[in-house]
C-alpha cells in the first residue's frame, strides 16, 4: 500500500535519512524505532507527502506522493482523505475555536453533510465528548492528543502515521492508547524510542540506526533480543554499577526518560 | 525591509554602531534595574519570540501572505528597552548565525525598528488609549511598522548625497529620497495594517492570560 524506495534526506549538510526502502501492506501494524535524532519524524513527514525527500520516492497505492505531486487537487483530496499523520507536538495541529470544530474540520472541508454528527461520534469514542464546546488549547496534554486523534480518525483513514503518540502520556493513558490502536482496523505506523512499548504497537519493527539508515526490518521480538543491534541503534547502553566493593557493567535499557 | 550589505556607507554604519553600542549598555542597565537576575533569561526568550513572530504569516485572500514584525506587541507588553535589545539580538542572530540579513545594516535596523519603532508604538498607545483602547493598540502596531520604514528609507535616500565619487556617481545606495520614500512607504503602510492587527489581538490575549491565575 505504502512504498518507499531509496529515500534519503539532508537538511543543509546534515544527513537525516539514508537510503530507506520498505513497503507496508494494508492492515499491518508497524513500529518505527530509533534513538532521538535518527530521523523518525522526518520519515513520517516524507511518507505523508509534506516534505520532498532529497532523493528517492514515495508511492501510495501506486501513486507518487510528494508536495509537488499533491499540488494536483484531486490527488491531494484522495491522499489526504486516506492517510493521516499525528504530529509529535499536538499543539501544532490545534487551531479551531472549539473541540467540536477541531474534529469536524476535515469532514467540513470535504463538504460532508453529517460532519458534526461524525465529530460527536469520534469525540465520544476517544473519551473527549464532554469537552466539545471548550477551546482545545486549554486541555491537558493527553486530552489534546485524543482530540487530535479524533480529528484524524473522523475521516476514517486507511493509513495512520503516529509520531511518538505516547511521549506526552502517563502510564494509564499509554495503556489505553495501546488497546485503542490494537482495535483499529486501519494500517498504523507508530514511532517510539520507548522499547518496552514496541511489542505492543506492532509485530513488525523498522529500526533507524545512528547512521540514519534502516538497521532492521522484521519481527519486533527478534530485534529486541539482539543485544548487539540494540547497542548499535543506541537504544540500549552500558552502565557501571557498584555492588559493595565490586564494580561491574550492566546492559541497560531506559524506557522512561 | 531587509537591506543587504553594501548599500550603506561607512559614514552611516560606523556612527550608527557607536550610537547603538551606547544604547545597548544603557538598555541592559535599565533592564537589570527592573528584572535583576532574571534579565538574561527573559531577554534571551524574548529574542527568540521576536524571531519567530517575524516568521508568522498574516494570510491574504488568494493564498499569499505578508509578515509582521511583532515590535508593537513586544514594546507594549514588555517595554521599549526589552523590545530594542531583543530586536537587536534577532538581527545579530540572523546575520551571524543564520546568514540572513546584513551586518552593516544591523545598527540602522536596530535603531529604526527596535528603538524608534518601539518608542513610537509605546507613545502612540499612551496617547490614544484613553480615547479608545482598541484603536490605540492598532495604531501603535501600524506606527511601529511605518515609522521604521520611513527612517530606513531616509537613511538609504541620503546615501547618494553623502557617498559619491568625484564625478558625482553614487558609491552605495544609488537613489535619492524622492525615489525611495514612496517605494518603501506605500507597501509598508499596507503591511502596517497587519502589524496593527497582530498588536491588537496579541496584546489582548496577553492581558487576558495575565488576568487568570497561572
Amino acid at each position: 500500500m505504502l512504498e518507499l524506495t531509496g529515500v534519503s534526506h539532508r537538511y543543509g549538510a546534515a544527513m537525516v535519512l539514508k537510503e530507506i526502502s520498505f513497503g507496508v501492506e494494508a492492515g499491518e501494524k508497524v513500529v518505527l524505532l530509533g534513538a532521538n535524532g535518527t530521523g523518525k519524524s522526518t520519515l513520517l513527514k516524507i511518507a505523508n507527502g509534506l516534505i520532498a525527500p532529497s532523493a528517492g520516492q514515495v508511492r501510495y497505492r501506486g501513486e507518487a506522493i510528494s508536495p509537488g505531486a499533491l499540488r494536483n487537487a484531486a490527488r491531494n483530496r484522495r491522499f489526504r482523505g486516506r492517510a493521516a499523520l499525528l504530529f509529535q507536538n499536538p499543539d501544532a495541529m490545534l487551531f479551531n475555536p472549539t473541540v467540536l470544530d477541531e474534529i469536524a474540520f476535515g469532514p467540513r472541508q470535504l463538504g460532508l453533510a453529517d460532519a458534526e454528527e461524525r465529530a460527536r461520534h469520534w469525540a465520544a469514542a476517544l473519551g473527549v465528548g464532554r469537552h466539545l464546546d471548550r477551546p482545545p488549547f486549554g486541555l491537558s496534554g493527553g486530552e489534546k492528543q485524543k482530540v487530535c486523534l479524533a480529528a484524524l480518525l473522523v475521516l476514517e483513514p486507511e493509513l495512520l502515521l503516529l509520531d511518538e503518540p505516547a511521549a506526552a502520556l502517563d502510564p494509564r493513558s499509554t495503556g489505553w492508547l495501546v488497546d485503542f490502536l490494537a482495535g483499529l482496523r486501519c494500517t498504523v505506523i507508530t514511532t517510539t524510542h520507548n522499547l518496552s512499548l514496541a511489542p505492543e504497537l506492532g509485530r513488525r519493527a523498522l529500526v533507524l540506526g545512528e547512521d540514519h539508515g534502516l538497521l532492521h526490518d522484521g519481527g519486533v521480538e527478534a530485534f529486541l533480543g539482539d543485544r548487539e543491534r540494540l547497542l548499535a541503534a543506541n537504544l540500549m547502553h552500558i552502565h557501571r554499577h557498584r555492588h559493595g566493593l565490586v564494580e561491574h557493567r550492566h546492559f541497560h535499557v531506559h524506557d522512561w526518560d | 525591509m531587509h537591506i543587504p550589505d553594501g548599500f550603506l556607507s561607512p559614514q552611516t554604519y560606523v556612527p550608527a554602531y557607536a550610537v547603538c553600542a551606547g544604547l545597548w549598555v544603557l538598555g541592559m542597565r535599565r533592564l537589570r534595574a527592573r528584572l535583576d537576575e532574571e534579565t538574561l533569561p527573559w531577554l534571551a526568550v524574548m529574542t527568540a519570540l521576536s524571531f519567530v513572530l517575524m516568521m508568522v504569516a498574516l494570510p491574504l485572500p488568494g493564498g499569499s501572505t505578508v509578515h509582521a514584525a511583532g515590535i508593537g506587541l513586544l514594546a507594549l507588553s514588555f517595554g521599549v528597552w526589552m523590545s530594542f535589545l531583543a530586536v537587536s539580538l534577532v538581527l545579530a542572530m540572523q546575520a551571524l548565525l543564520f546568514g540572513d540579513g546584513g551586518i552593516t545594516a544591523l545598527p540602522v535596523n536596530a535603531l529604526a525598528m527596535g528603538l524608534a519603532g518601539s518608542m513610537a508604538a509605546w507613545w502612540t498607545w499612551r496617547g490614544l488609549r484613553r480615547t479608545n483602547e482598541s484603536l490605540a493598540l492598532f495604531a501603535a502596531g501600524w506606527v511601529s511598522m511605518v515609522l521604521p520604514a520611513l527612517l530606513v528609507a531616509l537613511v538609504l535616500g541620503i546615501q547618494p548625497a553623502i557617498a559619491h565619487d568625484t564625478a558625482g556617481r553614487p558609491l552605495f545606495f544609488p537613489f535619492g529620497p524622492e525615489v525611495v520614500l514612496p517605494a518603501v512607504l506605500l507597501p509598508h503602510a499596507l503591511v502596517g495594517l497587519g502589524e496593527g492587527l497582530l498588536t491588537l489581538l496579541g496584546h489582548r490575549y496577553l492581558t487576558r492570560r495575565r488576568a487568570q491565575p497561572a
Partner: protein
Amino acid sequence: MNNPFADPGARRDRLALLAYALAVLAATLVHDPRWLAGGLTVTLLLAGSGAGGLLSRVLRTVLPFNLAVSMGYLMLAWLRTEPPWQTLLLLNLRVLLLTAITFLFVRRVNLFRALGFSRSLTYLLGLAYSQALTFRRAHEDFRLALVSRSPRRPGLMDRYRVSAAAASWYLEKALAAARESAQALRSRGFFDA
C-alpha cells in the same frame, strides 16, 4: 573564571571574528571594482571546495534586492543619458563580496566560542538561539499540520486561525521558558559567581 586564551580553538575563532569585522570595513572603504573583484576571488579561494555552493547561495540571497536596484538605476541612467556600467559593477560587486565574506564566516567560525570571553553574552546568545530553533521547528509543524489535515486548500479563515494559534502558542511558551530558565540559572548558582 577560565582563561579565555587557554583554548587555541577559541582564540582562532576570536581572531576570525576580528578579521571578519576588518574585512567588512575594508570592503566598504574601497571603491575600485578591481579590488572588490580581487577580494571576492580571495574569499572564494578561502572557501575551497565549498566555493560553488557559497557563490550560488550568495547569488540567491542578493538577487531580488540587487536586481530591483540595478534595473531601477539602469532606467534612471538611461533617462539622464549617462553610462551606468561603472556604478552598476561597483554596487553589485560590493554586495556580492560582503555577503560572501559573511557566509564564509558563518560557515567556518563557531560564534559561541568566539564570544567565549563573556559568559553573559554566550549564555544570552546560546539560549536565544536554541529557543529560536525550537520555535522555528514548531513553526514549520504548524504549517505542515494544516497541509496534512486539509484534503482541500484551506480557506482564509482557517489560515488566519492557524497563524493566531501559532502566535499565541509562541507567547505562551516564551513566558513559560523565561520563568523556567531563570529558575534553572538560580539552581545552577549562576548568580553567585
